Structures are given as structure tokens and as C-alpha cells.
């Protein structure tokens, strides 16, 4: 009975990781250079979910199997005065669509809430069981 909380907790962790990648994407929406200062734009990241937990293989739950990098084309903007423009005057911006990120963030937040509610139900059930002792 007590491990039922772990199932919901694994989902909370997974959804929070997803939220972190979304936050990273939104923060880097206009990043045209990488950490070393080279003119390689940031690429969109997204979390891939998989059933089950690596730390407890035969238990139920969910986990983030990997953080995938989106290989889609960059967003081009004509900015000839920008230091990172190409030979035609276009600057490559990260392949991030703010609308998509917002929708994903909303979905992650709702899924997180659903799991918190499920946890409350589990706790209520456990409390009822424990009251048998008293």
C-alpha cells in the first residue's frame, strides 16, 4: 500500500523534469551562440517519457528515458547588422516555438496536479486503513 505513493512521486519527478526542459527552451529562445561562444544556435530539448522506473525495474510508474534534442530547422531572421548573420544577412535563431512550449508547459502542470490529487486520494485511503488499528 505504501509504495502507491512512489508511483505518483515518479510521475511528479518526470513532469518536473519536463517542465525544466521547457523552461530551458523558453529561456534560450533567442540564444544564437553555444556555451563556448561559437555561433551555433541553441536547439530545442524535450523529455521522452517511458513506462516503469529504472531504479525499481519491476515497480509501476513513469520516468524520463532521455532528453532528446530537436534536429528541426532553425528560425531565420533577416538581420544584416547582427554579428552572427550568414552571407545573405540572415541570423539563425533556435527552433523554438513559444506557443508549443506554452501548451506543453500547461500540459505538464496539469499532469503534475493530477498526480498530486491522486496522491491525496492514496493518503486518504491509507489513513482509513490505519484507523483500523486505533
Amino acid at each position, binding site marked *: 500500500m505504501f509504495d502507491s505513493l512512489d508511483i505518483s512521486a515518479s510521475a511528479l519527478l518526470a*513532469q518536473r523534469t519536463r517542465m525544466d526542459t521547457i523552461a530551458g527552451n523558453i529561456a534560450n529562445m533567442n540564444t544564437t551562440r553555444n556555451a563556448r561562444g561559437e555561433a551555433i544556435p541553441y536547439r530545442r530539448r524535450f523529455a521522452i517519457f517511458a513506462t516503469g522506473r529504472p531504479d525499481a525495474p519491476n515497480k*509501476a510508474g*513513469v520516468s524520463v528515458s532521455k532528453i532528446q534534442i530537436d534536429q528541426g530547422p532553425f528560425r531565420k531572421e533577416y538581420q544584416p547588422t547582427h554579428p552572427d548573420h550568414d552571407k545573405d544577412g540572415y541570423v539563425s535563431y533556435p527552433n523554438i516555438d513559444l506557443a508549443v512550449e506554452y501548451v506543453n508547459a500547461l500540459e505538464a502542470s496539469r499532469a503534475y496536479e493530477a498526480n498530486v490529487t491522486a496522491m491525496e486520494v492514496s493518503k486518504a*485511503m491509507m489513513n*482509513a486503513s490505519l*484507523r483500523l488499528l486505533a
Partner: protein
Amino acid sequence: MLIEGLMNRGNGALLEQVINFASQRHKLMLDNIANVDTPGYRQKDLSVEHFNSMLQDRIDNRRRTGQASFEDIDMKTENPLAGILFHDRNNRSMEQLATDLAKNAMMHNLAIELLRKQFQQMEMALREKVV
């Protein structure tokens, strides 16, 4: 002997099975909610009809023979076709899940409460006074 009779003749053994079933089903539902965004995940559930018919069968059997055996009730896992299949091959249905979770929790708490009342009555009889 007396305690054993009280436990196995009355509703105790029956309620125990209901509680056991409800908590197993609760775990599957938590798994379903946890995997609401996992691509390719199919919803899992325990067959309530199957459990009810098996329980009814055992109760009838006990009425006929006076023998109580609730131990051999098996729980059948099924994949309900509740939600529509989304593009990520997940057939989630949040409303269905929330309803089932609430109903199942109520069922569990009802069984617990009945069991509690039964224990209280037993205690009352043992103490020979009304608490």
C-alpha cells in the same frame, strides 16, 4: 476458535478481499495517471465484474456448504478501451480515470468502515459494555 469463527463466518473475510482488490486497483490507476503523457502506453484496469462474480460465487458457496474460502479469488487485469487512441498511441481519458479513482477510493473506505464497525462490535462484546 471463537475469534477464528468471527473472522471467517461473518463479513470479515469478504471485506478483506474487497479492500485487497480496491488497493490493487488503486495502484493500477495511479500507474495510469502517472503515464498519462507516455507515448504508447495502454491503460490498465482490474475487471470489477470478474471480481464481483467470483465474490458472489464464493458467498453462494458459503451459504450452501458453510465453508468459507475467499483466498482463491484471482484478479484479472484488462486493457479497457475507454479513451480514444491519440497520435502518441496512448488511450488516456483523464475524466474516466478521475471518476474511477474516486469511486474505487470510496469503495475501499466503505469496506474499511464496515470492518471497523465489526471490530468495534467485537470489542463491545468482549468488554461487555457499550462504549
